[in-house]
């Protein structure tokens, strides 16, 4: 992989994610008929938080402080494995999809533990929900990726989303549609978007992700915000790569299309958030099971 593309990869990874949040907010504002905050507002928020001091709960231990850090580090690690644009991933090996999924798991372990560390019943509640819903999201993610494994015959993310993907759309298009839908649901739940969770709600009892981070402040909260956007970006990248199979020729056009795709995804999320209401908590598992079944359906279609 040429250095230039590696540099672009990292530049996009580090700089682009907050913009997605800005795009989503802007889209929602547009739907609500407001002007909304500027696109770059998330960057301002992050800078402001990084400059702030920290207030820590007396009940907490270092686990609480480590939570955001581990969360950020794991998402960054995972980003090494995902191919952006029409390029290969910086790191690619057989079975890296397992590492990819498990890195999110490691991050989740520590963010959930950090929430429990406060001893607050509300944060515990959010932690429980987060842990529960991701239990169902994980099989859906794996089953979705399995469709790609089967159709491409490759065991690495790079290979699965490589140049052969275009041909697979022709032969196994139905399966891939199912996978894209399923992964979109996974993306929404992993990033706590509507219809699973409303990041802008103000009632703690209904929250999932936001309630877990109630006690974080200052740089730690900034890290959480940043890693949330990173996670959206990384998972979104997977989705975009699958949905937009690009050939390997014309590398820079690939980058442009990829960024456009990511922004399009952000708009799509904004549209979903604007047109749908948050689901009742008890209905969330059903939708997730639906995602699992969708992925499984993709596999069944392959077996024809």
């Amino acid at each position, binding site marked *: 992989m040429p250095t230039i593309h590696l540099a672009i990869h990292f530049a996009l990874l580090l700089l682009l994610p907050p913009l997605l949040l800005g795009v989503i907010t802007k889209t929602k504002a547009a739907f609500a008929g407001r002007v909304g905050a500027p696109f770059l507002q998330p960057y301002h928020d992050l800078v402001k938080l990084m400059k702030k001091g920290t207030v*820590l709960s007396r009940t907490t231990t270092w686990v609480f402080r480590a939570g955001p850090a581990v969360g950020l580090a794991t998402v960054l690690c995972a980003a090494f494995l995902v191919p952006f644009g029409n390029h290969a991933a910086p790191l690619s090996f057989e079975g890296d999809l397992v590492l990819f999924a498990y890195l999110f798991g490691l991050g989740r372990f520590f963010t959930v533990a950090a929430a429990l560390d406060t001893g607050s019943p509300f944060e515990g509640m959010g932690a429980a929900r987060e842990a529960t819903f991701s239990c169902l999201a994980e099989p859906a*993610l794996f089953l979705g990726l399995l469709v790609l494994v089967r159709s491409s015959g490759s065991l690495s993310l790079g290979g699965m989303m490589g140049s052969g993907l275009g041909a697979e759309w022709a032969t196994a298009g139905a399966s891939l549609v199912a996978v894209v839908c399923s992964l979109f649901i996974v993306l929404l739940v992993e990033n706590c978007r509507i219809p699973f969770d409303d990041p802008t709600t103000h009632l703690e009892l209904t929250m999932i992700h936001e309630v877990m981070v109630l006690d974080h402040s200052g740089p730690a909260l900034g890290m959480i915000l940043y890693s949330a956007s990173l996670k959206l970006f990384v998972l979104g990248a997977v989705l975009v790569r699958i949905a937009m199979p690009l050939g390997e020729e014309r590398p820079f056009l690939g980058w442009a299309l990829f960024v456009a795709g990511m922004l399009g995804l952000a708009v799509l999320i904004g549209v979903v958030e604007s047109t749908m209401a948050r689901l009742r908590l008890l209905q969330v598992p059903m939708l997730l099971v639906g995602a699992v079944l969708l992925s499984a359906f993709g596999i069944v279609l392959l077996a024809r």
Partner: protein
Amino acid sequence: MSVALVLAGLVLCGLSGLPGLFVHRERGSGERVFAALMIAGAAAGVVGALRALALPAESVLHRAWPVRAGAFDLRIDPIAVMFLLQVLVIGALGAVYGLGYWRQVDHPRNGRKLRLFYGLLVCAMGLLVIARNGVLFLFGWEVMALAAFVLVTTEDHERTVRGVGYVYLVATHTGTLCLFAFFGLLHATAGTVDFAAPDLEAGALPLTGPAATALFLLALVGCGLKAGLMPLHIWLPGAHASAPSHVSALMSGVLIKMGIYGLVRACTLFSEPPLWWGGLVLGLGVVSGVLGVAFAIAQHDLKRLLAYHSVENIGIILMGLGVALLGRSLGNDALVVLGLSGALLHVWNHGLFKALLFLSAGAVVHATHTREIDRLGGLWRAMPLTGAAFLVGAVAICGLPPLNGFASEILVYLGLLRATTHHGDATWIFAALSVASLALVGALALACFVKVFGATFLGVPRDASVPAAREAPLSMLVPMGVLALLCVAIGVGSPVLAPLLGAAARTFAPGLATSASALAPLGWVTAASLAVLALVGASVMLVLWRTRGAQAAGTWDCGYAGGSARIQYTSSSFAQLLVGLFAWALRPGGHAPALRGPFAPRTHFASHVPEVVLDVVVLPACRLAARSFERLRFLQQGRVQFYLLHVVLTLLVLMLWR
């Protein structure tokens, strides 16, 4: 020479409890001698095992043994080494742990007995993995089972412990009877009771047809009962919860693996296993994995929860073994290597982190005198080292990078993924669904362990009646530390083990071609683990540095001022959603109050998840059988006239027999 060294080490372990018998029951010198002998025995055994690995020519010992079909046939091959090392290392560490956990002065009544049978257990397990003769194997097997029974019932003055011990005993004896049948049938069909005679290569026995099927099923049930695969796990949760913690560690970490060992060995007998064997093992692995972790989530008892996780991990190991069997049937060498390596490495890893978890859980129980997770909380402040040890174990058992659980789970994943890409028949769908199940298992395990870790060590203490905890003594911390280090070491250094795993796979299926290349991803695992370690370490350091001297305040209470520590989310409430999802299998019960009116009276809430297979299926069936047996008691109702009538009737029936 190597075998002699191993044997000497095992004998040393087996006899380690004897000197203590001659020491007064209030004195502690016996326990120190015990620990020293165990360490010495384990050291000798480890050296011998490694030596045998390096010099295969010296790894065989053959002596006559004057019992029918018996021979003192020992052989240390790579598979045996895999298990032997685990037996010795965890056995010795547990012995050291016992110095602090089960001190003779605190337990004058059963301390000596505990140590005697602990040593015997280690010895028996070591013997059975190096034994090649079936009778010798059974010998070690049953001594192991009985020693474990004595250990489980160490506190036999408690009613629950007695019940648990009885269930264990019946389960293990059932397994032994299956193995009786196994060896009997093996002798009848193959003319030998040996797991491959010394001059025979594995898989050389021409076993096919119904006899082979019967043999396989007998081995599966006999070893499965020991391994605790769902639904044969009925004895496991209770036994592991009731035994002293270092015994639980040894049982959960090592003893149940003997079932896996037996199954692996039995599978080496067959050169051409049919496809459905692998499918069956894989399916059982999926069931054990998913249901094991589901049951674990619903537990309130710290050690019982860990015990159910053993069922889960046995499931993962079986998935690996199933992949290996599928590979043999399909003639796919990569599947064999990946599946078996994954299974064996997970055997190791599970032994390490499960022992670590049980030992740290034991430290918690030791400090607080309760196993109820819902009564604990905030222990990190009092016992940070124990907490750290538990954290390492928890991260490892979830299979998360950069620890050892990941290295083995990814091998199993790879095996299953390879099977998914296999063309030709419908096996791949099965493999694909297994991948999803394994993912589900991983996620559920994560939810479960974050729950336990959070509820036990984080937050604030929930129950004021639980005594203030103190950090465990050094004798308990050192074994935990060693285990934690081993977890990290295997996590980052797994490629070192690749040759051993490859050799084990070749023992399992001679004539494997590609062993090295299939295990290549282990190198990437090391790279990834190191990267994760570095990145996570750096960012944690950064945050810690950045937030040093932060302002302290109370936890944000969302405006509900005046809540007590009791309103923290408990482990039960954490698990409630997931238990609800699995209610079809878990059948949760309990007592929930019906609140009426604005001023509800004082009430209570309780939830409970039974051991479904035992409480809903096995015990009622046994009671039914016992009741119907009691109906036959009229045959023996005391009148001599009836007894004489029995004689006459027998005579008449037998006369008419012809």
